């Protein structure tokens, strides 16, 4: 895939509407793009999209999640002020003064505004405080048919993904950026005459605790799982965008031997990588993937991101391309049956 195609895909996926448990739009895009490179593609009982490429030898599964954090309308009053709950972790600060896109259960899209009382009407005390969800509301009264907005309608911040210099900005790049890695990887691996048994699992419900990944891991029981998610670009950890994929290291979850293999392959192929310690819980699908069924050797690969869980998440596409390059060689090494150090 050319870089320009990659960028288009990333932007398209970011724009797709896909709150936790309602990922249909994202599914459509991923399906269309990965279909040429796999043998079968299906949505499982819990809503994971699974693309399977037949091969020989080890069963390798790549996990990325396609759900995004969102709001859900919990009640609406007669004047058109809607209360809401969150699906996934959302900072109330980033919600203030946003326009949101509401998909109603009647299939229509409507607009809402999360407003802020003007400073004139605030006092010293209230100015210091960030209103909690309990004190925030979505104003839907501007819609001529606002009474059609009902409990259970889903909403995301209304932003269109775009390029800022060489970076991509948008919502839901956590973790659709990694979905792009899986699609590109499938494309690359399609060029080989023989590959291991490959599963590209696009999971649902990661943002509410990894339920989707647990089910997929239980069902597929791969010999190796590579879980891909975004991680914080932060001064504290020293992890930054544009410096390549981040390998999860240490701790109970990451498989030590496969980790060494991956690290060595990065060196051999001159892929610049970064490292991130993984404590008892990684906060990714890996937590449930590893201990599903009879247990699954698991690796974590992340790409750095700024402003996670906001409408202006930032991704450097170079990290995506480098991740694909690394994983392609990694899969190649597994195909050759190399589980020992390379």
């Amino acid at each position, binding site marked *: 895939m050319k870089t320009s195609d990659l960028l288009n895909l990333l932007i398209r996926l970011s724009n797709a509407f896909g709150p936790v448990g309602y990922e249909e739009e994202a599914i459509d895009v991923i399906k269309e793009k990965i279909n040429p490179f796999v043998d079968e593609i299906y949505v499982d009982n819990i809503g994971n999209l699974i693309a399977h490429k037949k091969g020989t030898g080890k069963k390798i599964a790549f996990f990325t999640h396609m759900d995004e954090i969102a709001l859900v309308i919990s009640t609406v009053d007669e004047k058109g002020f809607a209360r809401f709950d969150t699906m996934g972790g959302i900072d109330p600060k980033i919600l203030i003064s946003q326009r949101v896109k509401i998909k109603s259960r009647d299939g229509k899209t409507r607009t809402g505004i999360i407003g802020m009382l003007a400073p004139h009407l605030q006092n010293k005390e209230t100015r210091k405080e960030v209103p909690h969800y309990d004190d925030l509301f979505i104003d839907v009264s501007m819609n001529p048919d606002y009474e059609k907005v009902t409990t259970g309608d889903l909403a995301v911040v209304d932003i269109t993904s775009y390029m800022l210099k060489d970076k991509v900005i948008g919502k839901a790049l956590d973790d659709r950026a990694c979905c792009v890695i899986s699609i590109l990887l499938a494309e690359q691996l399609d060029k080989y005459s023989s590959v291991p048994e490959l599963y590209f699992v696009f999971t649902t419900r990661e943002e509410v605790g990894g339920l989707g990944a647990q089910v997929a891991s239980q069902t597929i029981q791969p010999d190796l799982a590579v879980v891909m998610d975004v991680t914080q670009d932060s001064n*504290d*950890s*020293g992890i930054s965008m544009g410096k390549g994929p981040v390998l999860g*290291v*240490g*701790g*109970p*979850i*990451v498989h030590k031997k496969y980790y060494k293999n991956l690290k060595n392959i990065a060196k051999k192929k001159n892929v610049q990588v970064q*490292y*991130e*310690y*993984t*404590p*008892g*819980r990684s906060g990714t699908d890996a937590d449930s993937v*590893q*201990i599903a*069924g*009879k*247990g*699954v*050797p698991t690796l974590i690969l992340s790409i750095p991101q700024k402003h996670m869980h906001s409408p202006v998440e930032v991704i450097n596409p170079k990290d995506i391309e480098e991740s694909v390059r690394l994983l392609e060689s990694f899969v190649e090494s597994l195909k050759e049956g190399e589980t020992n150090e390379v």
Partner: protein
Amino acid sequence: MKFKRLKKLTELYGISGFEEPISEFIENEIKNIVDEYWKDEVGNLIAHKKGKKSNRGRLMLLAHMDEVGLMVKKINKDGTLAITNIGGVDPRVVMGKKVKIGEELKDGIIGYKAIHEQKREELLKTPKYDKLCVYAGHEKEDDAKSEFNVGDPIFFDTQYKEIGNYAIGKAFDDRNGCEVLIKIIEYLQENPVDYDVFFAWVVQEEVGLRGSGVAASQIEPDAAIVFEGTTAGDNPELAESRWAAKIGQGPVLTYAHRGLVPDRKIFDVIKEAAKKHNIPHQFKGRTAGGTDAARLARTLRGIPAGVISTSARYIHSPMCVMSLNDFNNTIKLGQTLITEGKVLSK
């Protein structure tokens, strides 16, 4: 020394995710006295003693190999190592201690600002892990980086010691359970039973009961007994009514804990066996804290389990105390239950 192997087991270094030294040690101890054994994808060690008769059921005995500890989070500019905890470790127990770092067990220490440098308020305030670090003899970031990596495990470094009827040391939670399982295998050599007994030394209990479900999925047992190290709490600063257990009063039986009320019939079988054979025992006085029994209940078709613990004071720290009489009685109770076989015939 009454329990030489327990000494070895507790002195081995194995925090959650780094249990290999423990499983290797146990493997060596049991490999010639079990019918089969294997290590699974997440590092659990599983062994099988076949019953004299087939189809008499499958009992699983379980103990966890991991202990709590720390991990290198970042290598600081001044060559020290920033740390985070693996499993529940109170930052107040790590200061002024020696530690071992990495799988190569390099030496380090965890200090804290001298008392002279602290303000009165700071003296009695629990520092966060952000304020703690390991010093391993390096003054520069690059020097430290040549020796250590982000993600390296950090272990408590405590020698086991027996004093009279007590033992002091680290990792009694749950290496004592690991030893109980080995003792039961040895006992079965002399006293075989009709049914199949599986032994699982599992990983990652301390970070969320993560190993036991994986082990049980391979064994598919009909019932299980979890051997744990539990907290005692019998100290003068805590009202007696709030103690979880008292060391020296025998194995601790659990009627309820976090995330599960363990199977009533198995609980009764254990209680009756202890009574009948005059094995001192006590009931856990608190319901806080869970064990792998909670994971087993949620695995496959639901595996009913009982929980038997040896209590120790000050667990999840580098310095714990337990009663060797309790430990002996736990072993005795375990062996008794195996011979009775009633845990299965519920």
